[in-house]
């Protein structure tokens, strides 16, 4: 059977742009058709912004790569029209289990509360997600949306100008040139765009190697994330087991620093390691093997004039915590509505500086969390190992020590506290829905809160009303009743009897009040769009 990653999904085809007398001008060009670039393309296309995606390849990535997609990412995928197919294909899980030495020491639940449409996580091979995103792009194009992917188009040079970016592109049929008002670089951790622009990528290298193997086997392990510290089958190191669709299991084995990387990738070395873990009698096949080291680093700025960096191109983290692809999708979710407003002349370019502020903030939080997890998992001094083992020993008997066990703090969206787009807060409303926070989902009589929101700014009027706001500001108004909805009341009202929330297109709270005040809403909308003159959201 041909695997999806062996099939060209967007094969090279000659485009009229290649025969144009002068370089054609495009509104937005995206470099890289990975999950982040494709998500950006879909988001912009859904907003009616014409977009061209260039990728040097013509197919989805091989190997499972990013496999854990967090609830927030699934909620973003819902807005991009891919949430159902991802969840239906993926393996849903909420629980993790931690082992130390030969003992099962405890389990934890990543979604300990009800009232969310989406689970804490699904596991899904990256190539499936990319396939679904490519199919969504193609469906949008078939509906007449201005979006296309050009395969085997490799950018060789970038010229930066005050009002556009110039791209020299190589194809199987020779070079051509494009001009773009805006360029979004989603070209991965080794970003050629970053290199061609001579920008730095500063951070920390961790001196460790991890063997990553996708194993095909029929096994009856539960659908949980299993993490081992110092197991008998990988002494002094760590191990991870995760279920993916199609009876594929992800296994990560820490190998240490001084190894022969090429030799360790060989099946003669890999298979005995896996047998030691899974048992001699378990029949399995190897689908993909790789050895990785990792780094935690980011660019100093994600916006460089008309070039915007997103995903691994802008920031890189260790894999513990699933904060790579998940944070990349939060980048484009943050960026695309802003870019669409700027391109429409409805917000000034300054709005894009808030992308830089907010997503640098997010990247720093992700880097901090993944650095801490890495230091716990791979202690680098005798005393840090002594403390690590003491925490694990205590955690096997005492609940208090379990929050100290760090096998990866799994991706949750960050709260943009003190963010440049935030306005008023109101005492008595719950802390979790303060300005800068992502909206937590809640059940409604006929569906889910997040599913009821549109593409633009929204006002939530809970047990109060916003009379003229829809007409006055052109925002969507969602009037909700929390009287018979305790989860909605708990997440959005706290001790107040009513509330009005101004919600950004990316579902972060911009401001909130105990009741509707048109002047305050206008001020908050201006701030959330950096509007200097007329307000037109």
């Amino acid at each position, binding site marked *: 059977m041909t695997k999806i990653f062996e099939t060209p999904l967007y094969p090279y085809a000659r485009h009229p742009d290649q025969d144009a007398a002068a370089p054609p001008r495009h509104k937005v060009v995206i470099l890289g058709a990975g999950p982040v670039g494709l998500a950006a393309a879909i988001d912009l296309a859904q907003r009616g912004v014409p977009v061209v995606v260039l990728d040097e390849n013509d197919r989805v990535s091989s190997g499972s790569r990013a496999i854990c997609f967090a609830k927030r990412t699934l909620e973003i995928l819902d807005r991009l029209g891919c949430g159902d197919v991802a969840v239906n294909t993926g393996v849903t899980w909420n629980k993790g289990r931690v082992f130390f030495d030969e003992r099962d020491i405890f389990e934890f639940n990543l979604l300990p509360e009800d009232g969310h449409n989406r689970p804490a996580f699904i596991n899904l091979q990256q190539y499936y997600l990319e396939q679904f995103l490519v199919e969504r792009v193609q469906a949008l194009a078939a509906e007449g949306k201005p979006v296309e992917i050009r395969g085997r188009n490799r950018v060789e040079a970038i010229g930066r100008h005050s009002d556009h970016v110039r791209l020299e592109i190589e194809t199987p049929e020779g070079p051509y040139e494009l001009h773009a008002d805006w360029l979004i670089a989603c070209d991965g951790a080794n970003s050629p765009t970053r290199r061609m622009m001579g920008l730095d990528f500063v951070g920390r290298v961790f001196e460790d190697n991890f063997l990553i193997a996708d194993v095909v086997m029929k096994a009856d392990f539960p659908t949980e994330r299993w993490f081992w510290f110092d197991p008998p089958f990988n002494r002094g190191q760590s191990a991870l087991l995760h279920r993916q669709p199609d009876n594929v299991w992800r296994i990560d084995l820490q190998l240490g620093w001084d190894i022969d990387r090429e030799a360790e990738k060989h099946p003669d070395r890999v298979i005995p390691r896996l047998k030691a873990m899974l048992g001699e009698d378990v029949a399995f096949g190897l689908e993909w093997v790789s050895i990785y080291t990792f780094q935690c680093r980011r660019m100093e700025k994600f916006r460089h004039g008309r070039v915007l960096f997103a995903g691994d191109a802008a920031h890189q983290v260790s894999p513990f915590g699933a904060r790579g692809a998940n944070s990349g999708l939060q980048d484009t979710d943050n960026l695309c509505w802003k870019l669409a407003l700027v391109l429409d002349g409805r917000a000034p370019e300054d709005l894009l500086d808030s992308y830089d502020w907010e997503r640098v903030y997010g990247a720093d939080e992700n880097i901090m969390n993944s650095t*801490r997890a890495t230091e716990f998992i791979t202690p680098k001094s*005798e*005393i840090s190992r002594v403390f690590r083992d003491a*925490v694990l*020993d205590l955690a096997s008997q*005492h*609940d208090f020590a379990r*929050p*100290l066990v760090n096998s990866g703090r799994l991706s949750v969206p960050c709260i943009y506290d003190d963010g440049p787009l935030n306005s008023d807060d109101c005492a008595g409303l719950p802390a979790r829905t303060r300005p800068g926070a992502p909206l937590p989902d809640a059940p409604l009589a006929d569906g889910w809160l997040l599913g009821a929101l549109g593409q633009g700014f929204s006002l939530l009027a809970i047990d109060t009303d916003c009379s003229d706001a829809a007409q006055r500001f052109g925002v969507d108004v969602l009037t909700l009743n929390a009287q018979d909805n305790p989860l909605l009341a708990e997440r959005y009202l706290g001790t107040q009897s009513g509330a009005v929330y101004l919600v950004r297109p990316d579902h972060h709270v911009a401001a909130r009040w105990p009741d509707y005040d048109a002047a305050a809403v206008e001020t908050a909308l201006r701030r959330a769009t950096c509007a200097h003159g007329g307000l037109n959201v």
Partner: protein
Amino acid sequence: MSDLNLHRNLTDPDGFYANLMAVHDGLSKAESDALNARLILILANHIGDEALLAQALHTALDIAPRAE
């Protein structure tokens, strides 16, 4: 006599752990051992309740040993 609190009591466990690791950064094992001893004595003085400290000593001692 109050009971030793073995429920979760740290608001930012990861932040505390990072600070704990940071004070040991760059120390030799002997220096770290000495720092740990001082730290235990400082915390014991702060707690003050000797019955409670006796419970803590036994809790630390009573963790089942791992097979060597």
